[in-house]
Structure formats: C-alpha cells, structure tokens
C-alpha cells in the first residue's frame, strides 16, 4: 500500500501558529513544512504539547481564533491555499474534501442530538440529499465501520453508545463525503487496547476502500509503525526529523527520535524500570532557547547547538540536527 507518486494532496509551507496568552505570545507551530501524498498515511509524532495537534487543527483552520492565529505560511489542498480562504468557502470544504476525527469520542459528539441527526446534518450539508434520503446512507456508513444494527443506532444518543462505538460513528461521519484527506487526531488514545486494535484495523480497510490520504496525529510510535508509510517527528513546534517509517524506526538520526524509540517498551525488555528516559523537561514555550530546542536534554550537545538553530535538511526525508546520529 505504498503511497502513489504524484502531486501531493496537501502542501504545507512554513506554517506558523501563534497563541496570545496572558504571559505573552506562544509559537505553538514554528515554520512547519511538509507534503501529504495521495493515499498515503503520514504519521505526526511527538510528546504532548509539541504542536502536533495544533498542526492537525490548522489543516482545517480549526484553531480557536482568538487567542490563536496562523501567523504565516500556506496550507494548500489540491493547489488551493486554505489560509486566506473566506470562512464560507472553508465551511464548504470541511467535512467534504478534508475531514477530521478527534481524540475524545466521549465529548466530540453533541450529547443532545441523536447519532442519525448528527450524521444526516453532515450528509445534507455536503451532499445533495434530503433528510429522508440521508438516513439510509448514514445507516450504510455505520455498517461500513462495523456497527451492528445500524438503523437502530441512528436513533441513539451518544451517551447510549460505548467509546469504541462512538469513535466508529466519528469515523463514519468523517468518511461520509469521501474526503481526499483525513486528519485523525489521536483517534485511539482514549480507547482500551482491544478496541484500539479493532478501530485501527477498520481504519486501514477503509483507507484502502476510500482511497484517501490520512494524517495520523499520535504520540504512540507503535501505532505509527503499524499504520504509517511516512512520519514526521515534532518537538517544540518544529519538525526535527522526517522520513519513511521504516527508515525512522531502523535508523533514527535525530537524538530525540532515538530517545523516543528507546523509551518504547518492547516485549523483550525485562523490566519497565530499566527503560531509558529522556532526561530533563520540555522547555518553556515562552522562553525558548536560542539554539537547538532539544539542546538541554540532548546527550550529544555541543557548543554550536546552543548558539545556532539547526534546520531540517530535507522535506521528505531529513533531520534538523547539527550532529545527527
């Protein structure tokens, strides 16, 4: 299931997102550039707070504004820049060309409307259907994501479903208009392990069927290894390394990536306590160091790292490090 070569579905260039807080302006995403190719699954990995979720939200311009704003950069979907797009056009696009599913299935659905109601809302919005026509379509979609007795489920309210079921409903909604690109923000984090596996499997099947590109935002390297062809590693708002999943996992070049990989528990490792941990803490986003942002935690830090900020060496496959592994 290798990504088809060709024009990227999504081209992100120099994307910078800032948040105005009480204490000053925070740059949550700092000059991020990447491409998403048709049909591929791109992983966006990093610790929480590294800016990966904000990047995902920025793809749909869902960042709450204010306090957030896209300070610069472009997000081109099929050659059309979303950043300057008027809200109305953007609304037409959301859910149709580009969809998103969220981490928390418990709260992401509106508790006072039925599943069917919420699904038909989306269907009627983007496909030329009446409410009556939309219902069987919605049921069909639910069946596709593996929900039994879909017609009955349409009458249910979200609180009547389990977490896994709800996430499937979200997926069904996201797929309902056959989007070119799907942003999945930690879609399985809130689920238990068994459900997680089921949902991911479903995900893969559906991706093949719907032939869409997926950006999978996650902190879970295991999920990336299983699902993604390529991955971007983010740290403090910037991409520190990019490459194919295989390359990243076998030959990490950024010390941070290496650290992340080392901290994954493997079946072989005897005791959890012996797992290596990246020392130190993520720097305060308000007072970022001038040089490499990983410098304080890096075992290989040198004088240059503190003075000069490294740049990513290549877009599809590169590393932002003066002294890569």
């Amino acid at each position, binding site marked *: 299931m290798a990504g088809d070569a060709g024009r990227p579905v999504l081209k992100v260039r120099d994307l910078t997102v800032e948040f105005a807080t009480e204490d000053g302006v925070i740059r949550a995403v700092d000059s991020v550039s990447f491409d998403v190719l048709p049909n591929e699954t791109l992983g966006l990995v990093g610790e929480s707070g590294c800016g990966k979720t904000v990047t995902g939200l920025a793809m749909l311009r869902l960042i709450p*504004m204010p306090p957030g*704003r896209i*300070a*610069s950069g472009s997000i081109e979907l099929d050659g059309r820049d979303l*950043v*300057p797009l008027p809200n*109305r056009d953007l609304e037409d696009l959301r859910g149709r060309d580009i969809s998103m599913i969220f981490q928390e299935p418990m709260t992401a659905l509106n508790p006072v409307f039925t599943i069917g109601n919420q699904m038909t809302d989306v269907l009627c919005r983007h496909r030329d259907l009446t409410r009556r026509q939309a219902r069987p379509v919605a049921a069909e979609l639910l069946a596709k994501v593996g929900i039994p007795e879909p017609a009955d489920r349409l009458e249910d309210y979200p609180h009547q479903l389990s977490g896994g079921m709800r996430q499937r409903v979200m997926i069904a909604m996201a797929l309902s208009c056959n989007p070119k690109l799907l942003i999945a923000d930690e879609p399985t984090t809130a689920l238990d392990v068994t459900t997680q596996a089921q949902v991911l499997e479903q995900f893969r099947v559906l991706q093949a069927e719907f032939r869409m590109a997926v950006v999978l935002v996650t902190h879970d390297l295991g999920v990336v290894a299983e699902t993604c062809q390529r991955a971007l590693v983010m740290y403090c708002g910037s991409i520190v390394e990019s490459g194919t999943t295989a390359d990243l996992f076998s030959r990490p070049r950024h010390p941070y990536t290496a650290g992340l990989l080392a901290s994954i528990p493997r079946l072989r490792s005897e005791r959890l306590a012996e797992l290596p941990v990246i020392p130190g803490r993520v720097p305060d986003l308000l007072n970022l160091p001038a040089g490499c942002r990983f410098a304080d935690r890096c075992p290989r830090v040198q004088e240059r790292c503190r003075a000069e900020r490294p740049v990513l060496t290549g877009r599809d496959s590169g590393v932002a490090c003066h002294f890569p592994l």
Partner: protein
Amino acid sequence: MKIVGKKFPRKAISVLFVGLNRLISAFLAIFLVCSLAGCGPPSGSGAASPALKTFHFAMDQAPTTLDPVQGANIYANFVIVNAYDTLYSYQYLARPYLLKPNLAVDFPTVSADGLIYTFRLKKGVRFIDDPCFPGGRGREVVAEDFIYSIKRQFDPENQPQGAWLWQGRITGLDEWKAAGSDYAQPVSGLRAIDEHTLEIRLTRPYPQLTATLAQGYSALVPREAVEKYGKGLGVRPVGSGPFRLVSYDTARVVMERNPNYRQEPVDLAAEGYNPATQKFSGVEAIQGRSPPFIDRLEFNFINESSASWSSFTKGDEVQLTVLPIEQIDRVLASKRPVTLRPEYAAKYHVYGGLEAGFVFTAFNMDYPEFGYNPDPERERRNQALRCAMLKGYDWEARNHSWYFGLGEYFPGIIVPASPEFDPALSRASVTRDVAGARKLLKDNGWTPDNLPTIVYGTTAGTTERLFFEQFRAWMRDIGFPRAKVVQKTYANFGDISRAWKRSQLPLVAKGWGLDYPDAENTLQLFYGPNASPGSNDANWKNPEYDRLYEESSVLQPSPERTALYHRMNQIVLDDCVAITGISRTRIYLWHKNVIAVPDREILGGFWLKYVDLKPEPANIPALVKGG
C-alpha cells in the same frame, strides 16, 4: 505575513438580522396598533362612553374599607358619605363650617334639660336597588335603619371605630353592648317613634351630638345588606347616597350617579355662598338644579404626589388634585391670597383651604426624664426643659420648608378653623428664641451632659425623617448633643399608634383633624381621663384643666363656654406640655371645565355631589374664557 481573521459569514448575519428585523417590526406593529388605538393621553374614563359626564380626581391614599362602621379614615369617609346618607351634613360653601340637615328634615328638637333629641327623617328616600332587598328594589329608609346603624358601632364583631363618639352618652347603649350586642334587644336611648321620627335620650347633655350625626360613622346602613354581604359590605356599599359604587380596588374607586337620588334643588344662599370669594368657580350654574350633576365619579389613589401632579397637568387623566408642596414655587404667583402664575391660571382654578386640624408634638408626661417626676424639684426643672424646647422649635422654618409659608402656626390647641379660635393670643410660644431657651436651660441647671435623650417617634418615610432631622438640628441649637436626639421609626401608622396607646413614646408628633367645628374636639386631647390608650397621648393630668373641661362639655355654644375654652388653652401653654401647632393649607387645583369648590376638611366628600362639568373638553384650555 498574513493574518487570518474570521470574516462575518453572510448567512449568520442574515439569520441574526432577520430575527432582529422581525423583532423590530413587531415592536413597530405594536406601537402602530397602540397609536391607532389612541395611545396619547387616554381618557381616564376608559370604557365609559364619552357622553357620560365623568369627574376624576386624585387622593393620596386608598380607603381601607367602605363600611361606615370603620369609616375612621378620611379617604374612606370620602366614599362613604357619597354612597350612604347621614342625618346631617355641612353647608357646601359656608366657611367656617356650618351644619345643615341632610336626611333629617330639620335640626332636632331638644328638651329643656338637653337630654332628649327628636329627629324627623325625610319621607320617600330609598336605598339603591340591590339584590339584598326583596325583589331587588331598594326599600324606603326609616328611623329603624339609623338605630340599627348606631348599634353596629357597639357590636365588637364589626371592629367599630366610631363608638367613642357616643360611648357613655346614650342611655342603654353601653349596657346593650355589655349584654352581648343582640340586635333583637332594644336600646332605651334609641327609639323610633314612627317610621320617620327618631328619639335619642342622653345620659348627660352632649352639645356636639348633632355634629356627630354628620359623620360617616353614623351613616344609615340597611340591615338586609349586612345580613346578605356580611364583611363583604366593606367592598359593596348599599346606601341611599347620591352615588353608587361601580368598582373598588387599591388604585381607584369608581362610582356612578344614583338615578333614584332624591330631588333637592340647590339653594346657594342656604349653602353659604359667598360671591366675593367663590364666584370664580362658576358655582352659580348649579343654582336651582338637583344634584348629583355628574354621571361618574372616579377617585384615583396616587401616593406619589409627583405622579398625581403629572397626571393632572398632562390632560384630563385627573381633573382635580391637591397641589404638591414641591410644586408651589413653580405654580403660584402669590401665596396670600393664593393666585396662579399666568400659564397655570389660563388652565386651572385654584383654591386654598386652611386645614381644620393641626399638627403638634406633645411630650409624654409619663416619662420622668422630662415629664412627671416623684422629685418635685426635678419636675420643676423638667417643665423648664420643655419650655426651652418649645422656644427652640422653629415654626417659621417648618412652615417655610414644608408648607411654603402657607401654613398658619398658632399658640395653643384651639385651631384657627374652630369658631372659638382667639387670634389675639400672644404668639410668644410659637416664636423662636434660641438665646432664651439656652438661658432657661442654664438657669435650671441643664447641661449637655445631664440633658435627657429625646426619642422622637415617626412612621417610616422621607418626610417624617426630614421632620426629625430638622427637629434635631433645632435642638442642637439650644444645646442638645446630636446623640441625645434620636429617631425611632415605626413601620406604619398602626405600629406608631400602638406605641402611643401604650405610652411607649416620649415624644408624640401627630396630627389631628377636627371631627366637628368645636374646639372641644381638640381640647379633649389633653383631658386627663382620656389618657392612653385614649386620645390624650401626652398622658397629661391637670385637675384644674379637667374640671374646666367637664364644666364646659355640657354647655351649648356661648361666650361663657368660649371663655372656659380659652382658660384651658392657657393652662396647656403655661405647662409647656406640647409644642403646638400649625394648620396646613391645602391648595386645590382643578381644570376649568370643572365647577366645584373642593375641600376635604370636616366636610369630607359631601361636596362631590355638587360637582358639575362644563361641556367643553378640558384640553382646549378654555382659551381666554376663564381668564
């Protein structure tokens, strides 16, 4: 660098604005309907057809009940004397006030010893038609109705308020009450000789008896109505007066003409008409015609004088009102005599009437701090203290700030509206003398440290509070520390009455309205046996005064009696038992299309049946005509 902002999505705006637009157009529609329906100054008569002559006027309070047995309050009395008949009433235009027969044919014949009164009632007078009568048709008013009505004042079941007028005066009446107020039992002193002749026997001479029969308490109530409506009579009067009740709530009372009211053409001369002072009112137009002249009578109860004033000035919402004191400077061109500024004179008539009553502040002599004291020396110093406070009181300022200089302050307790008033009396007791007061205090050993604390009781209210603050400031001038003059407020008149009646207030500031034009009515306020809970709130007991009072109370009006009154008045003054007093002036304004000489003293609402309206509307301000 591009800054992405959220643009106004047109759809959202349109949704919101369609909503707002609808709302606004709804408002406009409401206002349109409203203006089409004649929103402007609505004719206060509401549903009444324009052909009906309606007179609406403002009073500052609502009556609490319309049952004559509880007709103590002036507002209730206004309605009661128009719904019911009394044996006597007052001449419409005579000042000072003079009695005249109303339901009685004439003044009573009195036996030589002054104990037996015989009254003759008019024949053919009927109660209004009401379901309480057989067949719904009002029956004739007879002497028994009067007896029944007086008995009601002695039946505790009714919580009567007027019994004190006849208590201990009419033979057998108190015994009748003591025996359980059984209406089937006769009262020896009240006898119907025939249907239209009544005899009253007294225990001792009571020169004021006839005057008490002009009060609402003595109004004739048909037994059938009491039996049918019980307490409901308070909201449903059934009488034989010039008007009958249409509706009654806390905001207004509406009455309509009693179509069967007896025909009695007005004789202005007999009503005490004085062309020199009353011609302006156009009252000559009613000469020879039978009242009532208006079809509907509306009493509007408006507490806020500002509101009643705007109602009055804006159109014919209210056609007659008392001029609020705060408007006096704006409206009056001169105070003595009362005349209006031209812009008001073009629209309104004005009449200033001196109150038949007064306002005074009595010391409660029960308080040893400044009243009676076991120590004769202290009692003597207390008297000096009271006299000093009298000297410190500033009647001039009080009159200026509260009555715009229109009130009349006078020494003693015989009010100017009493026939026995003595204009020659020395005004020393109402002339402020701060130096004299300070000297008096000093000479009698009073210092800021040993002066007693004076508690000044009032009801809750702005005016009352300002009265107090003014009083405190005056007392500070004569040497009282601020902390020694304190106010005590009571929620309502009932509560402060309780304090008075229980002798719990050191300083009693109150007003008294005359029940009849006889100084006896105010002199009894200091009669020893009337001490609390009676009307002698000062609890003053002076043997000489009490003896003179008893001596005078059985005398018919005469120079001898007047001389006794004057002696009593002087005793009150000499003992400095009260800071007294002032009679206020009420200024009435009314639209020029109204023919009336209004008043509310003693007369109560008797004058309302003589009110007439000129045909032209009030708002075309009678152009030059009235001026």
